[in-house]
């Protein structure tokens, strides 16, 4: 047991040191970093503004106010942004490049856990801009909704965020594993990751059945944000799922991460390199 703890401690030290390297290298060019940070934040701001600005004309989106949409939207920007920051190394286009160039093979030769190395191989700090503006949108949502806060809700909120980080992180791992064979990232994964995060930024009862069904049964993203939001906002469930549905977020997230880990481990065992 003690030995295992020591190994874990060692791995953690290496992970933190790798992140430190990323941090230093990206902060080397301060101006560049600042611009990238602002541009990334601006993307979030502009996209949300486009919704907010037309809301005046429409009043609501099938019964949901702008504040309630901001709650959903802000949660996704924070959750997905955090995931994008932590799992940058597994981002399929980025990882595919490592497979293509053979730099991934170098990592395999090092006597350190491969997952740790990939996680530490990139840390897209500019995502902090996205997270910060996501938090601002979320704060706007809180101001314009009358959430009755209870201890349970306060404790559950971070778990919902963790659910999203795990869920999309798991999808990133699956996407990265696929590049072992396709070399390039496959576009279908974008539909699940970026498409999924886009779909769950809106109250999901607005979608047609096929679309909602896809993100309920095939990729259960509906439980990550929409159902928790129903619970936080104290709204009745228009779809009639069991009462525990709002509390599935961490379970669904952890499940996807485990699936991603299993795929990744299987992929590593069968990886044959591109020879470049």
């Amino acid at each position, binding site marked *: 047991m003690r030995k295992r703890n020591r190994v874990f401690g060692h791995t953690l030290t290496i992970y933190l040191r790798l992140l430190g390297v990323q941090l230093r290298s990206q902060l080397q*060019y301060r*101006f*560049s970093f600042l*611009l*990238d940070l*602002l*541009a*990334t934040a*601006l*993307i979030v701001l*502009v*996209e949300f*503004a*486009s*919704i907010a*600005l*037309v809301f*005046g*004309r*429409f009043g*609501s*989106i*099938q019964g949901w106010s702008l504040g309630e949409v901001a709650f959903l939207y802000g949660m996704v920007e924070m959750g997905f942004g955090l995931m994008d920051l932590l799992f940058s190394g597994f981002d399929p286009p980025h990882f595919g490049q490592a497979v293509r160039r053979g730099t991934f093979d170098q990592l395999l030769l090092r006597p350190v856990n491969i997952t740790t190395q990939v996680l530490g191989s990139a840390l897209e700090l500019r995502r902090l801009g996205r997270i910060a503006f996501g938090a601002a949108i979320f704060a706007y949502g809180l101001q314009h909704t009358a959430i009755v806060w209870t201890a349970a809700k306060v404790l559950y909120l971070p778990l919902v965020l963790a659910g999203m980080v795990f869920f999309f992180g798991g999808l990133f791992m699956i996407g990265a594993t696929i590049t072992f064979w396709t070399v390039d990232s*496959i*576009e*279908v994964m*974008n*539909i699940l990751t970026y*498409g999924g995060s*886009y*779909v769950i930024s*809106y109250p999901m009862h*607005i*979608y*047609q059945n096929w*679309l909602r069904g896809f993100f309920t049964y095939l990729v259960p993203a509906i439980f990550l944000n929409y159902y928790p939001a129903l619970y936080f906002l104290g709204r009745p469930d228009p779809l009639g799922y069991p009462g525990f549905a709002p509390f599935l977020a961490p379970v669904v997230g952890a499940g996807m991460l485990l699936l991603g880990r299993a795929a990744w481990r299987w992929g590593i065992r069968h990886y044959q390199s591109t020879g470049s």
Partner: protein
Amino acid sequence: MDVTMLRNRLSQTAAERVQVPAVRLFLALAGRSLQRHLTYRAAAVAGLVTNFFFGLVRIAVLLALYGQRQEVAGMDVAEVVTYSGLTQAIIAYISLFGWYGLTDTVYSGEVATDLLKPLNYYTFWLARDAGRAGAALLLRGVTLMVAYGLILEMRYPAGAGQWLAVAVAALLSWLIAFSWYYLINLSAFWTPYARGICRFGFVLAWLLSGFLMPLRFLPEWLVRLAYLTPFPHLVNTVVEIYLGLLQGPALIRALLFQGVWAAILIVAGQLLLKVAVKRLVILGG
């Protein structure tokens, strides 16, 4: 050696040898580029699937906003569906999500040989982008519109005159878009961090072009602000002409505005390049 000097000397000797009209060079470059981009059909299909999917979700959101309303700000349901399809179809054609081709060559040094070519630097890039845009229009634009047309109720231009106007507007839209990207890409001559600067230029275009939402849905002050920039002529003008929302004098005026903006951006690009080239230092090796 100073790049301008080298260029002058080389172009003189080149001029003595052969006189190839710029138009022929342009067409040859555009043709090659078109061929090259038509080769990546699998990538185009993959991109198509994503564009198609996002379009459907955007339509769902817009229709949910419409709710029971039949018409909002002069756009009915079929028109707003067509708007969504068109905006998705135009993404690849005018590289709405970003183009950093020129900045990459500045950092790799290729820019030196490109500047020596016996063709105006802007025209050289325009030709290459013409091929890319043509391929994108065929593989991703038209296919996407056909796919949406098969499953959704959409509007189409009425008659040859309107189709012609759409074609002219789409051509000018590409010219404006490219000239704008060229302009912001030139920032690479000044800074090693052009990507961040360029990203600003793209994000602004998303909102002000009417790509994220039809401009008529936005508050009036913002629309007025948008029309002080070239951006509405990237997407909104094309869409409104396609839907027949601009007719007669309004249509002519819109096309004229597009032409003027294209001219302004092209001239600005030529002037900026003159300053930029003076700053360029190419390292040997």
